[in-house]
């Protein structure tokens, strides 16, 4: 960690990644016991488990970077919506399995490219977290990508469903490649990857799978944003109210 400025920027970066992992893990965990088949109950729960695991490492590190004594649980359970920094994509509700798969694949493809590059981060802690995460994310992207192909190149009904989900969710992918000024400094310092290069790699990966899935890549039109600076949809508040109930209701308890 070279400077205090880097430290603050890295706190922001780590928090965003941690929050995105946590919120997306939460959404996946809502499937547990309700998936289309038993194998998927297990698989989606497994991905959820990994994502919450990543969130734990990332939020713990974010708390250290911040230096105000907040641990993973303090960060996860005691912030309201406007302090959450996850991508809007992650908080989108599950709707149907196809929608969940599209959301997951768009994220996984990004996460894989990101973590692969973060393994070489000049920040050793971040590189260490990435090295652990990348192995799991490789499985995630295969899982969501395979399903996307199955559903896209399955029946007419399944094709229509995932095509609709793709159109609906595409505008939420812009946020993945936003970087504020502080984060640009992290790029320059070799701590986080260059967003333009990341985007190109993500797009190539996504396009390859979309083609196999016989799905058209939507045009990059107007992109939804705000999650990275705490401006969220109406969905996140409900998610947090549920997630945070116990620590809020019993503030003095340890569990």
């Amino acid at each position: 960690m070279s400077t205090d400025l880097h430290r603050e920027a890295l706190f922001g970066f780590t928090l965003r990644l941690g929050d995105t992992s946590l919120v997306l893990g939460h959404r996946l965990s809502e499937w547990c016991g309700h998936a289309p088949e038993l194998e998927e109950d297990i698989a989606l729960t497994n991905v959820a488990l990994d994502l919450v695991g990543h969130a734990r490492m990332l939020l713990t590190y974010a708390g250290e970077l911040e230096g105000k004594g907040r641990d993973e649980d303090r960060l996860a359970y005691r912030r309201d919506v406007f302090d959450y920094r996850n991508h809007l994509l992650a908080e989108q509700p599950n709707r149907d399995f196809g929608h969940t798969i599209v959301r997951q694949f768009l994220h996984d493809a990004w996460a894989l490219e990101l973590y692969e590059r973060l393994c070489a981060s000049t920040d050793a802690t971040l590189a260490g977290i990435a090295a652990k995460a990348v192995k799991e994310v490789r499985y995630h992207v295969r899982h969501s990508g395979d399903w996307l192909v199955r559903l896209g190149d399955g029946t007419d009904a399944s094709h229509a469903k995932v095509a609709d989900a793709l159109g609906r969710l595409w505008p939420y992918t812009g946020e993945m490649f936003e970087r504020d000024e502080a984060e640009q400094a992290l790029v320059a310092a070799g701590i986080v990857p260059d967003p333009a290069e990341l985007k190109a790699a993500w797009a190539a990966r996504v396009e390859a799978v979309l083609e196999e899935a016989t799905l058209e890549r939507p045009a990059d039109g107007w992109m939804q944003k705000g999650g990275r600076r705490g401006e969220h949809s109406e969905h996140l508040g409900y998610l947090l109210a549920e997630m945070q109930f116990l620590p809020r209701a019993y503030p003095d308890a340890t569990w």
Partner: protein
Amino acid sequence: GRLQQGFQDRVDAEEKIEPRDWMPDGYRRTLVRQISQHAHSEIVGMLPEGNWITRAPTLRRKVALLAKVQDEGGHGLYLYSAAETLGVSRDELIGQLLSGKAKYSSIFNYPTPTWADIGAIGWLVDGAAIMNQVPLCRCSYGPYARAMVRICREESFHQRQGYELMLALAQGTPEQKRMAQDALNRWWWPSLMMFGPSDEQSAHSSQNMAWKIKRFSNDELRQRFVDATVPQAEFLGLSIPDPDLRFNADTGHYEFGAIDWTEFNEILKGNGPCNRERIEARRKAWDDGAWVREAAVAHAAKRKQRALKKAG
């Protein structure tokens, strides 16, 4: 007949019966019923615990609960596979669950209104399940016995985890302790009922004993459970909700009050607090997932056809 005698001799010699071996129809039927009921219980059992995944109070607890419920799904898989070795398909078994023809453990028809229920389920329900299941690791039917070995190993991990969760509550704030006691109050009697009717009332038992599907009577297992659990409750500082409970120094066993089977029987009839919701949740998952399963089949067919074309 001779086959019958040869079969029974092998069972008596503690040899394992394997899928291709001859077996009596009743043995096969009993196993299919028992294994599939057990599989269904794992699947339905994901629901009451899954109910707290999104609300686990720490990320560590959330991860542990996710892993536990995932394990239960895995147990369901092993067990459906074991049942399939007896010549019945998973879809058929699931159809029986969804139509209400097949049963699952009544214990999962109780709700989990508080976080302490997650501890109580791990400690008491998994604890009772283990008492029932450990002898099944020596069941005469090989695939079932082997599945049970894996399952029991994981279940005993879950049971310790549940107990540890209760301990954290029991040693926590007064409100947490109250939550733990409340959960014990609600789960104690249903856990005792998990062992089934008392021996005098129990059907099937002697034949199942002879087949070495069952090795101990309901009442024996129930007594073991009580003997193991009462000291654990004492260690937690929680009270078992049974005024008649006392230790008999002569027998070395805990004596406990009479079980009121009225509620149990109502739950068996479908009148439990959650019977309807549990089955509806499973049905909804199945129905909502139909298009997904169809797409997977269609895609696999397309792939096959393309491969054939290429090969041809």
